[in-house]
C-alpha cells in the first residue's frame, strides 16, 4: 500500500482501498467456489500419503517450485523432536493455502491451512519430527505452488537409560 501525501491522504487511501477490494473480491468470486470446493473438507487422503511428493499431489494435484519468496523459519537442531517451532511467511500475493510437510515422518503431511481472503499468509505452529529430515513449506498462491525446504536435525536427548 503506497502512502500518498495529498491533503486528504486518508480519504484517497480509503477510496483506493475499497475500489481494489471490490475488484479483487469480484475477481476472486469467480474462482473461489471452484477452489474452495476442492479443499474445504478435511484432506483425509493427503494425510495418509507416506511420501511428501504423493502428499502434495493428493492435496493440490500439482507440483511445487522452490521460491525465494517463501521464508521458512525452523531451528538448526530441534531442542526436542516432539515440539519443533516452525513458521512460514511469504510475500507472494493471493495466497489461498499453506501446508507443512516433514519428509521422513511416517506420513509426510503434518498440517495444512486454508487462507481465506483477508488473512495474512504467515503461520507459526509446533510440529513433531520423527528424526533428522527436511521440513517443507508449500504455499499455494494464485493457483500455483511454491515451496521452501530446510533440514532440521533431531536426536534423542538425555544421556540414556
Amino acid at each position, binding site marked *: 500500500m503506497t502512502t500518498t501525501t495529498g491533503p486528504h491522504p486518508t480519504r484517497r487511501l480509503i477510496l483506493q482501498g475499497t475500489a481494489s477490494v471490490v475488484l479483487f473480491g469480484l475477481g476472486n468470486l469467480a474462482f473461489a467456489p471452484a477452489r474452495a470446493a476442492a479443499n474445504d473438507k478435511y484432506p483425509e487422503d493427503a494425510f495418509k500419503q507416506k511420501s511428501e511428493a504423493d502428499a502434495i499431489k493428493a492435496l493440490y494435484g500439482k507440483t511445487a517450485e522452490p521460491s525465494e519468496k517463501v521464508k521458512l523459519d525452523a*531451528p538448526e537442531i*530441534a*531442542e526436542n523432536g*516432539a*515440539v519443533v517451532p516452525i513458521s512460514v511467511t511469504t510475500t507472494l500475493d493471493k495466497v489461498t493455502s499453506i501446508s507443512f510437510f516433514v519428509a521422513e515422518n511416517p506420513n509426510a503431511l503434518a498440517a495444512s491451512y486454508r487462507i481465506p481472503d483477508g488473512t495474512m499468509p504467515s503461520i507459526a505452529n509446533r510440529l513433531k519430527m520423527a528424526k533428522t529430515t527436511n521440513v517443507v513449506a508449500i504455499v499455494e498462491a494464485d493457483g500455483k505452488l511454491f515451496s521452501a525446504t530446510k533440514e532440521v536435525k533431531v536426536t*534423542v*536427548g*538425555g*544421556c*540414556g537409560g
Partner: protein
Amino acid sequence: MKASISLLRGSLGAALVAFALAVPSVSAADKVDPAADAKAFQKFFFKKFPDVKHDDFVNGPYSMNEDMKRQWQEKEEFPPYEFSLDAGKEMFATPFKNGKTYADCFPNGGIGIRQNYPYFDTKEGKVVTLELALNRCREANGEAPYSYVKDEMASLTAYMAFTSRGKPMDIKIPDDPRALEAFENGKRYFYTRRGQLNFSCASCHVQSPGERIRAEILAPALGILNAMPIYRSEWSGMGTISRRFITCNSQTRAVPLEPQADEYRDVEYFLSYVANGLPISGPGARP
C-alpha cells in the same frame, strides 16, 4: 624496561595473592562457610561464561545457546505450562473440605514467597521445601497428600513460582549447626559421583554446561532451580524438582531415593542458596 618490570612485579604480586588465597581456602574447607561457597560458586560461572548476563543463568540451556534460545522464546509466546499455571491458580482458590485454602498455610497467602523456599525449620531441624510444605498443608487440613512427581504438585508450585517471578532468590541459613550441616550435606550430594555412569551433578552442570549430551544442551548449575517447575517437551508434561532429581539419578543408572529424601531436600537447599540474588523465573519451559 619499565613496562617489563611492572609486569614482573604484577605477576609476582598475582602469584603471592594466589598463594595467599590457596592457603586459607584449604583450612576453610573444614569450617562450613555457605556465604563464601556461594560467592565462589557464582564467580566460577560468571568467569566461565563472561558474556552471559548474570540474570540469564536462570534460563538454563537457553543462556548457553542462541539457536535454542530462539526456540524457547518462540515457545514462551504462548508457553505449554499455561494450563498447569491456570490449574494451580484454580486449586489455590478452591477451599479444602474443611473450608480452609492453601493461602491459610503460607505467609502472605502463598503469593510471592517462592523465593524463600526451601527454608531451614529450626523446630524440625531439617530443610523444608515448597513441595513438602504444600503436602503438609494438605495433610494438616485433612486432605490426602499429592504425589511429588505428578501434575497436581507441579500446578501448585507453578502458580506459586509465577507469583514470585523476577524476585531474587532469597534463601536464609540460620546460625544453627544443623542448618550448616544440611547445607554441607547438600553440597556433598551435589559433588558426589553416583550410578554406573559414575557422574555427579557437577560432572554435567559444572564441568560441561553449554555442551551437548546428544541433542540436549547442559544447563549451568547456577540458578538451575530458579525456573522450577518446568514443562519439559521430553516429558510432554510438567516436572517438579522431585521429578527432575529422580530422573537425573536414573539417567546415571543410580537408583533414585524416595522423593523429598533428606539428601534431595539438602541439595535443593544448597543449589537454591548459591543462587541467591538471581531472579525466580518459574514456571519454565525446557527441551
